[in-house]
């Protein structure tokens, strides 16, 4: 039995538009999402901002009611049995909010331990364990208001696993954390799997998903556009190549021509200070460099390189389709 199941999960928001005459507007944030997570997996929900990752995860952890479809965690329906679900899961989210600033980390943990029924002598032991695990031992008596973002994140994780839940949901846990801190957090997340838990992670960092996840579902504009292991997703673009061309000032017309070249599957432009990096994915083994350069008339060109596709390219191909 799958530990987490999303079955045609949907979420529509109703808002209003216009200032003088309010017209109702329906925004479909999640448009029918299907996936299943097996026990012991580290499953990644990968997508750009606004794709619907947070909405999906909130439906799974009972904070948001789906407007269609179903979801089950450990066999319990998230709408009909929220209490059962809440008891068995841990929820960790990124950002600065969500902790009692004027309290110490220790007090925050004690409070949540109580809420999750971790009490008695076992509580002190468990709180200690968890502090040790996330590397906050020695700083637990300081007030949270003085913590860095990385420390807060670690405290969030500590809070999320206090009651030793079977399933842990992590919503963009490394957002805004410095690279070193983020690496430590990722080691922590991998560790959770080692202790037998099942983890669902949302992120928009592909390298993070690639590094950590057993399987990934790529979500864009509320729909799953690709699912599989990182290797499988890469295989989707494996028999192609990526050509990277540094340009200085490329116009839209030239871009259109590049897109039109036969064999080209995706074109993205990254801004790098004064230059732009044109990344062209193409299927098959054909060398396209000359043809592409031919379409860039007028624009100055810098370095040109070709390489194998990475997961990032697979991701870009999926979300820009």
């Amino acid at each position, binding site marked *: 039995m799958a530990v987490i199941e999303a079955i045609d999960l949907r979420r529509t928001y109703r808002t209003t538009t216009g200032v003088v005459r309010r017209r109702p507007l329906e925004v479909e944030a999640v448009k029918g999402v299907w996936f299943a997570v097996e026990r012991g997996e580290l499953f990644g929900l990968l997508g750009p901002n606004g794709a619907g990752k947070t909405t999906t995860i909130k439906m799974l952890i009972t904070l948001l009611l789906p407007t269609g479809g179903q979801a089950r965690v450990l066999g319990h329906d998230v709408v009909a049995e929220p*209490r059962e679900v809440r008891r068995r899961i841990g929820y960790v989210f990124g950002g600065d909010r969500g902790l009692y600033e004027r309290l110490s980390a220790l007090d925050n943990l004690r409070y949540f331990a109580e809420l999750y029924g971790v009490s008695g002598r076992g509580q002190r032991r468990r709180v200690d364990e968890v502090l040790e695990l996330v590397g906050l031992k020695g700083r637990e008596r300081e007030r949270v208001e003085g913590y860095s973002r990385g420390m807060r994140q670690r405290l969030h994780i500590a809070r999320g696993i206090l009651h030793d839940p079977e399933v842990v949901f992590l919503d963009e846990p490394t957002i805004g954390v410095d690279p070193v801190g983020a690496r430590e957090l990722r080691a922590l997340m991998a560790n959770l799997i080692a202790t037998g838990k099942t983890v669902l992670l949302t992120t928009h960092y592909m390298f993070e998903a690639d590094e950590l996840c057993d399987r990934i579902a790529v979500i864009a504009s509320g729909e799953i556009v690709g699912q599989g292991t990182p290797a499988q997703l890469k295989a989707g673009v494996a028999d192609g190549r990526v050509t990277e061309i540094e340009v200085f000032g490329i116009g839209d017309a030239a871009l259109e021509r590049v897109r039109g070249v036969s064999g080209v599957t995706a074109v993205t432009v990254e801004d790098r200070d004064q230059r732009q990096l044109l990344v062209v994915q193409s299927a098959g083994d054909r060398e396209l460099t000359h043809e592409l350069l031919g379409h860039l008339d007028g624009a100055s060109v810098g370095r040109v390189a070709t390489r194998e596709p990475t997961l990032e390219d697979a991701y870009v191909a999926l979300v820009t389709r």
Partner: protein
Amino acid sequence: MTTLRLIRTGFVINLKMVGTSSFFLLTSTVQPVIFATIAFYMFRSGGRPGTLLYAALGAGMMGIWSTTLFASGGMIQWQRWQGTLELGVAAPPPLTLVYLPWSLANTFLGAYALAATLVWGRVLFGVPLHLAHPWLFALALPSALLALGLFGLLLGSSFILYRHANALANLLEYPVWIASGLIFSLSVLPGWSRPISWALPPYWAARALRDAAIGGPVWGPLGMTFALGAASVVAATLSLGWFEHRARARATLSLT
């Protein structure tokens, strides 16, 4: 048993958080003290005998109501701003149980107001602090605070549903002081307002405290205070349940 533990832990934690805030200490004592001073001068020049203790108690209870109204009433809204409301909903216990300790702690801290007005009255105006039934007072005070804390939870659970809760909260300060007869007798109010007064927990709490301090039947008012407190918890549970459902349906749990 775990329920009591949860309440106790939450209570102590919140006490720690709010009670150590110098801002809170100042605002919860300065306002009652100034009102007490106004009342002392008014009673003194009015020549009503034996009313200075009455005024001190009254001003203290006005402070307790203000704390209940603003601190407990704003408490769930505050959780939302802190980003911890989601965590409260995601936790296994029902919302009532999660936020009850917070409300209780806030209201208990209102006792600072009462202490301040009594001390102020004694030191600066020579208010005699002789209590008619000291033991009953010692029982009545925490009981009254408990019942008002329960009522504060109801306020908090109602305010979170209303977008302009702050304006509403401001509007309930003076009227409840008036209708509860905290610092003057209901005899100066028109007869039709009595039922309103009888429905207010602060009215009964004030009567219980006053009777214990100055003399009168304490048990009746205390009983009514508890009855209304119990009713508040029931109403709060319904209100919170409604709020949670709506917030989950409309995704407003984490809005600021």
